[in-house]
């Protein structure tokens, strides 16, 4: 117990000093290490002689400390404002440590890990399904939305007609959208020959996927238009002066200059879809939502966490990675204060 307590206390003390952000970062890391150490030592100690059905899960204190330490780390990092490569490196280190921690089995006495151990296959399927829903719908939305954005950029009339429709579509609450998709796709599955064979049916993957694609169109199209319109007039004029055709201007000037904004649209979509894919669990679409809603039905906290924590982690990691990409594609690095 003692080393963990000491590390935690030392981490908090280091984290609370004002002068050196690097030390604050180190303090937060030290505190987190202490916290993990305490949990890994505490769980087996509590389980001794407690019977086969005893479970140990971290209490409110653990989660509060985790949030406090994460905030300390976020504060230190936002003060340091590291460049994109440093951030990518830090992310890789954190993920590697996390993987090592989960692999090593020091936490295997916690009840959430026991839930995981008894559902390994289901968990792997859910992960693949969740990733498929989120990234598949992103790819589909990009394939439809990016060309649509280019057309809208050229034709103001179409832009004025399409954008309000897309933004209304995004307003519809996800559960309602999934609900409306069910009879629609059920009908398609029954009416169109061969549609059932490729998995189009009222319940399951198809309605969830279609709803996610519809939700994704607005950010993709709107950011594509905004990105193309962000080309400085001087650059556009120069390209025209050099005798570039409309296509050449699009590919060699407007798209590269608009790339950060376009990628920012894809970031919004990815993060949003990772979250929305949870609701697919309600209509039999699979993914981490299955665990969340099973857990809610059985009031099994560990099962809820088993679904919610990976979702949150996935969303955070994709947001950070996409932010790094956005920054790398910026032609002139932006200095944030």
């Amino acid at each position, binding site marked *: 117990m003692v080393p963990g307590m000491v590390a935690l206390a030392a981490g908090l003390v280091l984290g609370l000093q004002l002068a050196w952000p690097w030390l604050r970062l180190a303090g937060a890391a030290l505190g987190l290490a202490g916290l993990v150490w305490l949990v890994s030592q505490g769980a087996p100690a509590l389980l001794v002689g407690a019977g086969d059905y005893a479970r140990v899960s971290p209490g409110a204190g653990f989660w509060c400390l985790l949030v406090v330490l994460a*905030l300390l780390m976020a504060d230190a990092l936002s003060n340091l404002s590291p460049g994109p490569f440093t951030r990518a490196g830090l992310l890789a280190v954190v993920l590697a440590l996390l993987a090592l921690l989960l692999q090593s089995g020091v936490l295997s006495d916690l009840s959430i890990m026991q839930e995981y151990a008894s559902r390994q296959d289901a968990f792997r399927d859910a992960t693949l399904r969740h990733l498929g829903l989120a990234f598949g719908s992103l790819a589909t939305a990009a394939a439809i939305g990016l060309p649509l954005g280019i057309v809208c950029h050229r034709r103001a009339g179409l832009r004025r007609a399409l954008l309000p429709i897309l933004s209304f579509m995004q307003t519809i609450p996800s559960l*309602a959208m999934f609900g*409306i998709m*069910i*009879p629609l796709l059920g009908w398609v599955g029954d009416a169109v020959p061969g549609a059932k064979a490729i998995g189009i049916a009222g319940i399951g993957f198809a309605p969830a996927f279609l709803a996610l694609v519809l939700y994704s169109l607005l950010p993709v199209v709107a950011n594509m238009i905004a990105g193309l319109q962000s080309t400085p007039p001087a650059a556009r004029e120069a390209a025209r002066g050099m005798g570039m055709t409309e296509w050449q201007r699009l590919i060699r000037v407007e798209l590269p200059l608009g790339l950060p904004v376009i990628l920012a649209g894809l970031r919004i979509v990815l993060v949003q879809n990772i979250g929305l894919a949870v609701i697919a669990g*309600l209509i039999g679409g699979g993914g981490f939502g299955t665990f969340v809603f099973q857990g809610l039905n059985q009031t099994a906290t560990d099962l809820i966490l088993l679904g919610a924590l990976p979702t949150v982690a996935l969303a955070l990691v994709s947001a950070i990675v996409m932010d790094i990409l956005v920054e790398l594609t910026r032609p002139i690095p932006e200095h944030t204060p």
Partner: protein
Amino acid sequence: MKRGTLLRVALGTVLLALVLRPAWFAWVFAPFAPEGGPIIYERASLLSLSLSHLGLVALASTAATLVAVTLAILVTRPAGAAFLPLSRTITNMGQTFPPVAVLALAVPSLGFGSGPTLVALFLYGLLPIFENAITGLSTLPPATMEAARGIGLSRRQRLVRVELPLALPVILTGIRLSVVIALGTATIGSTVAARTLGEVIIAGLLTNNTAYVLQGGLIVGLFAVLIYDAMVQVEAFLFRRLGGQPSETSE
């Protein structure tokens, strides 16, 4: 504009009829109901579910607006400037948390019912408003601020009479985003036993009754679209009164 008003009135009427006289629509939903099963949701009155749904959203959004705008004012004052980078990071990272996950994580600590839903709606609703209020308050035209200082306004007067009115459109956009998210999250709140319109959809999903699903989905969807539209209109009105040019895309 004329056609828009007509469409709004029509959609509003359909919504009212769906909520107040659901039996009128039995013929619409009948093909979707299972053989011999119930067509119209009757376990609770749709009106009371709607009121409870909208009440939850209104309560959470009002509280979130008050807290978020106060916090944004604090971090944009000189005394709170040290917290500005951190609050930017928190809003950025916080918004990557899926609303459903926030709801699911609220249950273990707060239990079932409307309480955790309200807390989740409030917490999640803070972020867009806070982010937009910070943006609005920290991107004011320097010339105007200089002029306000020049005519001898005190700090408090500058805040109330110059900064807040100028930042209002951006703050309102944040509130609109927050309300839209809250409406959607409240629907899912019925999985944790909050009394909302999501109940109708969930009941349909559990009993394989597509008529319920469609009925609930239509009501929630119409509410969301009409509320969103009303807020856009209010924003445009305020923006015109402040003498600004409405932007072409309202995002």
